[in-house]
């Protein structure tokens, strides 16, 4: 799927608007054929970065190379990339066929070939037979497919997508996530998507760059991002998480321990690189916790037995509960006063009856679950 030379190289790119740096010294490489996602909250600079690749903004400093060629001074209509805009930007006064064939017409492609390629592109996006329809007769989802076809028919080296799923309703969104992934597999070109929705990112991407305030917070594959965030921003932005402050009290190559005033003692079965005795944070995901009625814990934990006595264990009272059907979310007030969030799958039909408000509850987690964060 990937070869050596990156299809897009972003080298030390900064973009300023006045004094504000929307993109701050970003460097990253996008590999050929991958589905790459720029993820971040609104205003973090991800869209600006995308637009710079497309050519609608020029970097204040730094270089952007597409397939080894420096794009400085090259306007958008001459770049080997095509973009699907957030509003789809389908031309309302043209039929679907004219829309999809627009780029080909500008490029001087003959009628016959144009018609053939348009038909092919519409087939790719599952809009066969829609040639003569007009955009105002179509739904949002259909118009998006037209925009996709319009870009794909140009056979670009890279397809850029700006928040492709944000305007769709939940069901359609889920469906389109699969379709976009399939499409990318089929067509084989590199996709670069911008989104603020972490679910989208996790489900579609090969690699994700999390952007915060114009900088890359972390660049990794989805599972790495989720299970091994390397800073609090990423841990919090991707999925929900509990974060506790603590001091690193044990730091060995194959194990480590952190003492958190709010949570208790945390044991990890791998080494961490951190200042011994220094301040760190511990991140623990809600689904990693085992909940049980106090008293029944010892038996459960004995089975797990991957942490010393007194570690990876906490007690509290259930202060909030949300039944979501497949899982139940809990908000538990620990003995220390801190609030922790836990989630529990409803494996059997009566699981949600196990706990209720104000119940005392014990939790433990495995030694490979917590993540130590330095920033």
């Amino acid at each position, binding site marked *: 799927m990937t070869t050596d030379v990156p299809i897009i190289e972003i080298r030390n790119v900064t973009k300023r608007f006045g004094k504000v740096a929307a993109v701050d010294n970003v460097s990253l490489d996008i590999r050929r054929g991958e589905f790459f996602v720029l993820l971040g909250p609104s205003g973090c600079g991800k869209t600006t970065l995308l637009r710079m690749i*497309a050519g*609608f903004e020029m970097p204040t400093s730094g270089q952007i190379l597409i397939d080894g060629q420096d794009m400085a001074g090259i*306007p*958008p*209509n*001459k770049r080997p*990339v*095509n*973009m699907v*805009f*957030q*509003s789809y*930007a389908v*031309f*309302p*006064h043209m039929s679907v066929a004219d829309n999809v064939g*627009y*780029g080909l017409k*500008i*490029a001087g492609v003959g009628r016959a070939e144009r018609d053939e390629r348009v038909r092919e592109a519409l087939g790719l996006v599952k809009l066969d037979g829609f040639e003569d329809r007009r955009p105002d007769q179509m739904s949002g989802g259909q118009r998006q497919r037209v*925009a996709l076809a*319009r*870009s794909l028919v*140009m056979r670009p080296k890279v397809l850029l997508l700006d928040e492709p799923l944000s305007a769709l309703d939940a069901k359609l969104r889920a469906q389109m996530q699969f379709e976009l992934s399939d499409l990318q597999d089929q067509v084989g070109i590199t996709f670069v998507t911008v989104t603020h929705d972490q679910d989208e990112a996790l489900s579609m991407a090969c690699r994700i760059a999390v952007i915060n305030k114009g900088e890359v917070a972390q660049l990794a594959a989805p599972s790495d991002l989720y299970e091994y965030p390397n800073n609090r921003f990423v841990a919090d932005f991707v999925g929900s998480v509990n974060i506790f402050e603590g001091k690193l009290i044990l730091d060995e190559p194959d194990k480590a321990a952190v003492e958190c005033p709010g949570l208790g003692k945390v044991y990890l079965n791998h080494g961490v690189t951190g200042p011994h005795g220094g301040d760190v944070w511990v991140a623990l995901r809600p689904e990693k916790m085992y909940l049980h009625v106090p008293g029944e814990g010892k038996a459960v934990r004995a089975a797990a037995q991957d942490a010393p006595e007194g570690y990876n264990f906490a007690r509290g009272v259930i202060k909030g509960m949300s039944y979501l059907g497949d899982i139940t979310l809990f908000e538990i007030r620990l003995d220390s006063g801190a609030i922790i969030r836990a989630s529990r799958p409803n494996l059997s039909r009566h699981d949600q009856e196990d706990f209720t408000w104000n119940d005392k509850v014990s939790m433990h987690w495995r030694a490979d679950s917590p993540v130590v964060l330095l920033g």
Partner: protein
Amino acid sequence: MPLFTRTPHAPLEYSKTLWMRSWVTAVMLFLYMPLVVLMAFSFNDSKRNVVWRGFTTKYYAKAWENDQLWGAMMNSLTIAAFATIFSLIIGTLAAVMLWRFRFPLKGAVDGTISLPIIVPEICLGVAFLVFFSKVGWPTGFVWPFNLSAIIIAHITFCFPFVAMVVRARLATFNREQEEAAKDLGAGEWQAFRDVLIPHIKPALISGSLLAFTLSLDDFVITFFTSTPGTDTFPVLVYSLVKRGITPDINAASTILILLTVVLTAVALKLQGVKSIAGSH
């Protein structure tokens, strides 16, 4: 038509109340009655607009043969045609310039372009009179070039209106469409032609109609810039009203009123009643 029936109505349905309906009817009568009277009198067999003496269409025939009337009408239409075309171009360019670009002194330019709308017609007319006389604008041209001074004056006060209308429509344009066109390979002009112009087409049409009407209807500015032989229809009617009207003017006026109604009906068909009524 149940215009005055007393149907019980909800508190907010003001337009069903009797006095409201009477008021509106009265206002409509006030606005239209003089026009209806004028149209009626064009068929009156009498030299003066006094007593009804009998139905005739002879004044329509007289109007048809009135060279002076025809001349004035042709002048009005020619001026309006040229003024509309040029105002459309200049006004659209001005609208695009203001909508798209940021440049030094933009506020001042914006204000200045709108000035002809605000400055009283009499002051504009005076300014043109002074300008053309000081510059020594030649007046001896053959038709239609003898209308050039009037046309220039009309373009000057019409194009800001066109700019205003086009600008309003530009504000609703989704810029991403233009970017999409460029992304697909279109250059500046191609994107403009293929994407922007179709979007502003309704504004171009209503702007043209507006310019045409303003030009055709203008009196004051034309009065100050016309020279012998360049009378327009309003100017001709003016001098006749002052001197003593000839009845064929009634006939010509009626035709013009009907023409206005027809044009409005055509515009309605093209655009829909709602948008015409809303585009003031």
